[in-house]
């Protein structure tokens, strides 16, 4: 997976906030993208940014909390499981707000998650496991979740509909 270098997207303008956000290189009126280091600070910043953007998009407080928690869990997966804290690997975080949806995409540069090997955390034999609940929580909190693993990383797309789940809304994992 290759992330675009700073300034490669002509319609995007660059700006910087906070010492923990390594690069903020793109923003349009309804879309903002970040390229972040594989650190715990990235997890906290991803959560805080999601909280702000979801609130600005008009979601209620409880929904904002669910969205920010889902983003936090996805960021944990990207930093910890995907990139394994490798300083040479980055996490890409994209927010896109439309009239219908808030779409958040988190990408890492790891080996790619094997979705089929994620155990069911609700199965009796897994209830007392100390890990393995992240993807479950993400799916619980968002309207749609799409997971796209590849040999060069995992991209997870989180979708929250502005007016609740769509009639034909469904979860897709690939």
């Amino acid at each position, binding site marked *: 997976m290759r992330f675009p270098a700073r300034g490669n997207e002509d319609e995007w303008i660059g700006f910087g906030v906070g010492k923990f956000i390594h690069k903020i290189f793109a923003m349009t009126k309804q879309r903002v993208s970040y390229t972040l280091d594989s650190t*715990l600070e990235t*997890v906290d910043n991803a959560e805080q940014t999601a909280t702000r953007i979801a609130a600005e998009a008009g979601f209620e407080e409880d929904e904002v*909390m669910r969205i920010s*928690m889902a983003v*936090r*869990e996805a960021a*944990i997966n990207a930093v*910890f499981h995907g990139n394994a804290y490798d300083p040479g690997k980055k996490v890409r975080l994209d927010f896109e707000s439309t009239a219908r949806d808030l779409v958040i995409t988190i990408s890492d540069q790891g080996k790619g998650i094997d979705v089929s090997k994620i155990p069911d*955390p*609700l199965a009796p034999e897994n*209830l*007392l*496991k*100390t*890990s393995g*609940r*992240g993807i*479950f*929580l993400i799916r*619980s909190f968002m309207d749609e979740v799409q997971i796209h693993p590849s040999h060069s990383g995992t991209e997870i797309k989180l979708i929250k509909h502005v007016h609740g789940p769509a009639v034909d809304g469904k979860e897709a994992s690939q």
Partner: protein
Amino acid sequence: MSMKISNRQVDGVSIVDCSGRITLGEGSVTLRDTVRELLSKGRKKILLNLGEVNYIDSSGIGELVSAFTTVRNQGGDLKLLNLTKKVHDLLQITKLYTVFDVKDDEAAAVKSFN
């Protein structure tokens, strides 16, 4: 807000008062260290007061489970006290609410250990 933690003894029960966030990193480590320290002193009746915990992530949930199983494996018991709505809801959807012994009254919770 990072996690703050303190503990006190009431009728042979260690009440661990937690506040803030139990999340990946500092919060989870603080809780783990506290439980381990209590166990090392032979204090195996532990009541985790989560009344001031306003946020918990999957790592924090895992730490609660780890504390629970660690204490149980050493012949002790760990119970939860005063769950906030957020923590309560998380334990519900992860089906852990029925795994933990959850209390909402401190005095009754302390008595329940004996």
